[in-house]
């Protein structure tokens, strides 16, 4: 078997084709026997120039000149797909190489064609599923009703939140979400991610209050094997996991000061070093931070770095507490009933008028989270198809030490009525002893007497 035969056998057995062109870029020899689908339709391999056989080179004339002049050795085009005569898609990698002819002494271009069909077909199947899913998600996100379905409510406060999300979703700006606990900061962060161009990439959520200070740096930035005693292998940090997507740092006000400096450096430079590593890693993440603390006050008390505060407070939004959302309380309550219908109690279908009134009069210190819990509990204990006022268990959370913040309900509050009740309770607890009752309310005896007279209360009635 001579060399030419060996070469032909190798070419056929390895699913490779080749074409060789002289310095005038005319075809001098070729073998397409193993990849017949590659040839352009109606184009005989013989007597063709490089432009006819490889239209992929049109526009790249300077590049072909470089190959002929041997200023460039090779040029690769990957995954060129062709429709075969059997209507199947075939894939090939093309390698264009500078070639030297010995007789006559001149230069040419050798093109090798590698069949990649089987590898790419598997890749295509995976990609197809992934893109179909993403297509569906982004279509849903673009539907006019998507935002109103994701962020429920018709109050002006909720409409402002929706407008905010729409304005900032397509930008890469860092976002700071503020608001009381239970106002839905995590939900808003997810919605921003889902309708942003990063929606196909990861959304990584970290609750800074839930991770012990000692672990937070390794969780966020990852570590190299051997960085500390139990680091038995390299571990990616959550920041790296979020590459291309969105990093949501919830309760950022709880982040230890020592780590705030490293986070600031990362935000400024878009790069970081894992624990125990000297290599710098670059990642592209959008940061959304959230807090229920007054970060301005935390800065004043040296609990939060001022420079980090300014860095994350580029665009901020304060989510409204439920008590400022008026009738949206009912809308949300009905949404939770619908949501929990099958899971908790199929019998319950809505709210009675008394339940609606009770929900509207409460001041919701725990916000939407509290509302959901109240509805879930009521559905468990409800005996009828409508939740009654008596099914709704509304209670104040235990007052924090030194906590003195009174929250005015959206529906208002009768000061006189409550003052009268407090005076009555104090008298009752102290069995009508005025000095003790006054002390219980932090009033002087004279003031106490003035007030019980105002409400026509007689201490003897309580002795």
């Amino acid at each position, binding site marked *: 078997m001579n060399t030419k035969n060996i070469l032909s056998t190798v070419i056929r057995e390895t699913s490779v084709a080749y074409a060789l062109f002289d310095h005038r870029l005319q075809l001098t020899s070729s073998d397409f026997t193993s990849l017949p689908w590659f040839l352009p339709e109606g184009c005989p391999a013989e007597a063709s120039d490089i*432009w006819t056989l490889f*239209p*992929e*080179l*049109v*526009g*790249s*004339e*300077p*590049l072909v000149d470089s190959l002929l002049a041997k200023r460039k050795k090779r*040029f*690769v*085009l*990957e*995954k*060129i*797909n*062709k*429709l075969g005569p059997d209507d199947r*898609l075939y*894939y090939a990698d093309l390698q264009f190489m500078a070639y030297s002819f010995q007789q006559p002494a001149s230069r040419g271009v050798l093109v090798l064609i590698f069949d990649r069909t089987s590898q*790419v077909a598997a*890749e*295509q199947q995976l*990609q*197809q599923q992934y*893109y*179909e899913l*993403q*297509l569906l998600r*982004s*279509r849903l*996100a*673009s539907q006019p009703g998507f935002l109103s379905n994701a962020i429920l409510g018709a109050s002006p406060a909720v409409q402002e939140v929706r407008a905010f999300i729409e304005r900032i979703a*397509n930008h890469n700006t860092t976002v700071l979400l503020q608001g009381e606990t239970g106002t839905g900061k995590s939900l808003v962060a997810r919605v921003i991610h889902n*309708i*942003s*161009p990063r*929606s196909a990439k990861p959304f990584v959520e970290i609750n800074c209050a839930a991770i012990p200070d000692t672990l937070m740096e390794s969780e966020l930035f990852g570590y190299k094997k051997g960085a500390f005693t139990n680091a038995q292998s390299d571990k990616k940090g959550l920041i790296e996991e979020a590459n291309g997507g969105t990093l949501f740092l919830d309760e950022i006000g709880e982040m230890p000061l020592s780590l705030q400096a490293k986070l600031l450096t990362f935000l400024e430079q878009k790069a970081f070093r894992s624990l125990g590593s000297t290599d710098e890693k670059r990642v592209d993440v959008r940061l959304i931070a959230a807090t229920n603390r007054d970060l301005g006050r935390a800065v004043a008390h040296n609990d939060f770095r001022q420079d980090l505060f300014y860095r994350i407070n580029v665009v901020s939004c304060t989510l409204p507490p439920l008590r400022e959302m008026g009738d949206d309380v009912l809308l949300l309550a009905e949404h939770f009933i619908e949501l929990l219908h099958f899971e908790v109690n199929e019998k319950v279908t809505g709210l009675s008028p008394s339940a609606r009134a009770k929900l509207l009069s409460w001041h919701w210190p725990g916000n939407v989270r509290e509302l959901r819990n109240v509805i879930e509990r009521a559905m468990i204990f409800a005996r009828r198809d409508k939740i009654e006022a008596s099914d709704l268990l509304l209670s104040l959370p235990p007052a924090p030490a030194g906590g003195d913040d009174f929250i005015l309900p959206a529906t208002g509050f009768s000061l006189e009525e409550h003052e009268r009740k407090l005076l009555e309770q104090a008298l009752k607890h102290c069995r009508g002893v005025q000095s003790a009752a006054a002390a219980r309310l932090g009033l002087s005896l004279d003031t106490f007497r003035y007030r019980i007279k105002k409400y026509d209360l007689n201490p003897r009635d309580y002795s």
Partner: protein
Amino acid sequence: MNISVYSKKICMLGTFGAGKTSLVRRFVHGIFEEKYLSTIGVHLSHKALSDSVTGIQFNLIIWDLAHIEKFTAATRNYFRGAAAAIIVLDLTRESSFAEKQIRIKEFIESNPGAALVFAGNKTDLLDSHEQVESELHAFAARWQAPAVLTSAKTGENVESLFELVVAAMPEAKKR
């Protein structure tokens, strides 16, 4: 009389599912398929088209590119030597307007001076065109490029889209 025919490489850019392949198939073969089949790598098609004003003939070699997740040296090779790009935006999905995903900047860096034409595709899925049309033109205006509303399904403006590309060629502008 010797009539020159200019062969030109045109790249189709846009996010996945924007309708790049459907526009090419409608233009080249006059067909449309509802089923979405994601493209891998690149598929080349040819079609001859004359500039309606000058009558100059162009042989368009259309590079239907897959959505580009990562811009690599291999991707840059796809862009090399292109005379124009058609940027396809899906009017039903705001996310298809994300500049970074479309790789317009990378395309211009590889081909300074290449023409850009924007296609706002899938008009057949919209009830009203007015708002998206102004958004499309505002988007295209950032690159001082023309834009046209298209539907690969109905064929609306598909021929006009490629005519805009041809009209933007330096050879057509010279005469």
